């Protein structure tokens, strides 16, 4: 099978719990060796989708194919998936090595094979010295590694992570994100992460699927997701933005002119005149002063938040609208609260989205 061939295919998967639609005709194709994140707020269906792939939840409709095999009706123990659970779900009555050996023992592997696999998995997560420890004697970070080693040891077709890093404290989590990504790339694992943490999604993944109300709103590489959000929800969920409500005055050539309470803006988008829209831009696109081919708006600085390499400036543009600018030290003078300033941002970095019930 070539590297680019579809490795995991989810086709039209739906799932209802009572009257609630949890998954609404999900389509998702993942290539071998790809790291994909399902990102969304709680209740968006991301965990249910992961469980459907693992075989722990049976979809009402649709198909799941893994490594060229239709596994829709295959029980979890015959799917050859590896799952790292949020609670780690390590077996308390077994040692570290016992936990990692569990999957291979159940499969009836030979003793020597098991020992070798356990050793390999332990060294992969750098826990070789803890093989004989009890689970209760491990720290949270160590337990996380054991859970990973246990899932990897059976050489699954796909690794599934259900909020696997969320129980770690922030610093450890950020270290683990980088290390885990490198480790998974080293062993050429295909993996799906479920998380509500956008930083984790952007750091760990080749592609991110933003989920909302049982649907995938956008499936894109992290960079594209941030720079070209496909929906207002995706824009809101990943990163910060300035958002201003308005009405389309004129449209054409993939651009619109939008009338808002704080001025007239040009934005990318296809709408009919008269449509209510939200005009949006990422904060780092906003600069103090004028630039060519740009939208501009003025206001009074409401707050200035210094965050090390960058400074976030929140500007009250009047009429209940605000502008959010991210200024780096190189941009010259950083304004102070109550300053009257004028901000501009490129038309090509301004998006228009249909106005919808805000998430």
């Amino acid at each position, binding site marked *: 099978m070539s590297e680019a061939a579809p490795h995991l295919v989810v086709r039209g998967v739906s799932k209802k719990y009572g009257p609630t639609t949890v998954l609404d005709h999900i389509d998702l194709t993942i290539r071998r060796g790809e790291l994909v994140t399902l990102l969304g707020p709680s209740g968006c269906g991301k965990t249910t989708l992961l469980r459907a792939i693992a075989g722990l939840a049976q979809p009402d409709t649709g198909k799941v194919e893994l490594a060229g095999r239709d596994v829709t009706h295959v029980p*979890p*123990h015959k799917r050859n998936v*590896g*799952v790292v*659970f949020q*609670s780690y779900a390590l077996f308390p*009555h077994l040692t570290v090595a016992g936990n990692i050996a569990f*999957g291979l023992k*159940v499969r009836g592997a030979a003793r020597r094979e098991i020992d070798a696999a356990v050793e390999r998995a332990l060294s992969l997560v750098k826990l070789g010295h803890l093989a004989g420890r009890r689970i209760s004697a491990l720290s949270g970070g160590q337990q996380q590694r054991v859970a990973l080693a246990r899932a990897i040891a059976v050489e699954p077709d796909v690794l599934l992570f259900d909020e696997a890093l969320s129980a770690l404290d922030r610093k450890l989590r950020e270290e683990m994100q980088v290390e885990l990504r490198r480790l998974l790339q080293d062993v050429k694992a295909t993996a799906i992460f479920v998380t509500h943490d956008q930083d984790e999604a952007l750091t760990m993944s080749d592609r991110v699927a933003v989920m909302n109300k049982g649907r995938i709103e956008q499936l894109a590489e992290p960079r594209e997701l941030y720079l070209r959000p496909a929906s207002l929800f995706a824009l809101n969920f990943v990163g910060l933005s300035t958002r201003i409500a308005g009405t389309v005055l004129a449209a054409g050539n993939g651009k619109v002119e939008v009338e808002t309470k704080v001025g007239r803006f040009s934005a990318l988008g296809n709408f009919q005149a008269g449509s209510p829209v939200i005009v949006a831009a990422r904060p780092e696109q906003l600069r103090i002063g004028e630039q060519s081919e740009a939208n501009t708006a003025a206001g009074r600085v409401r707050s200035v938040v210094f965050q090390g390499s960058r400074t976030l400036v929140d500007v009250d543009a009047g009429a209940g609208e605000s502008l959010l600018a991210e200024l780096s030290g190189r941009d010259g003078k950083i304004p102070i609260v109550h300053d009257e300033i004028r901000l501009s941002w490129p038309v090509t970095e301004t998006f228009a989205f249909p106005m919808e019930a805000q998430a």
Partner: protein
Amino acid sequence: MARAAIAFCWVMAIGLALFLIAPLLVIAAASFSPTPVFDLPLTGASTRWYGKIGRLDGFWPSLLLSLQIALLSTAISLISGTLAAIAIARGKLPGADIFATALVSPLMMPGLVLGIALLQGFRAVGFTAPWATLLVAHLVITLPYVARTMIAGLSRFDFTLIEAARTLGCTYPGSVLRVMVPALAPSFLIAGIFSFLASFDNYPVSIFLADVRTKTLPIRMLQYIEEAPDPTLAALSTLILLGTVILLFVSDRVVGLHRMAGTSD
């Protein structure tokens, strides 16, 4: 000041431990009395009372009955109580709290009240076979111990473990056997011991349901005391005590006494 307070607490802890253990020591000492008086032996020791236990009138049938009832009621309680506890701890059972309280409630009822209630209840439905009524009554006694321990044990059990085992290649029944059973084994053992002891030692409920031919050991022992108070009973009590200590010691080796006492996790 703080030191004095700590010292006072130390005295309390040591004093209370002695206070609780003293009667056991007294009964063990009395069992070696050389005289037929139920007294502390001050001159010499004798083991002859131990030899007399087996010859007590009706001792063996009563011991057998108590063991049968205790073992059987414990076994039934363990199985049914654990299943009920699973429903309460996991099954999203509507009103689970109410059922949990109901299962544990006989613990809060005085044994005499329970005994009278059961006697009248059994009579009302014409259920009078002594052995069977004793067994049913002892289910009422033992179930709360099992329910309480297993609900507590299950509430600490992460059911994700079963899912983890399934994704690692276990069938569902296999996962329950390989993961849930070993993880719950300590709770199971603790529940079994408490349940067995509660049944074996019960007097206030059994007394209402026993008849001349069907007397449990505690009833028989009280009868001995009334008839002929000699150190044979102390010897018997000491043996029961010894049996309990051995049971607890073995369990401690297996799961840890601190978990049974509930004084630490």
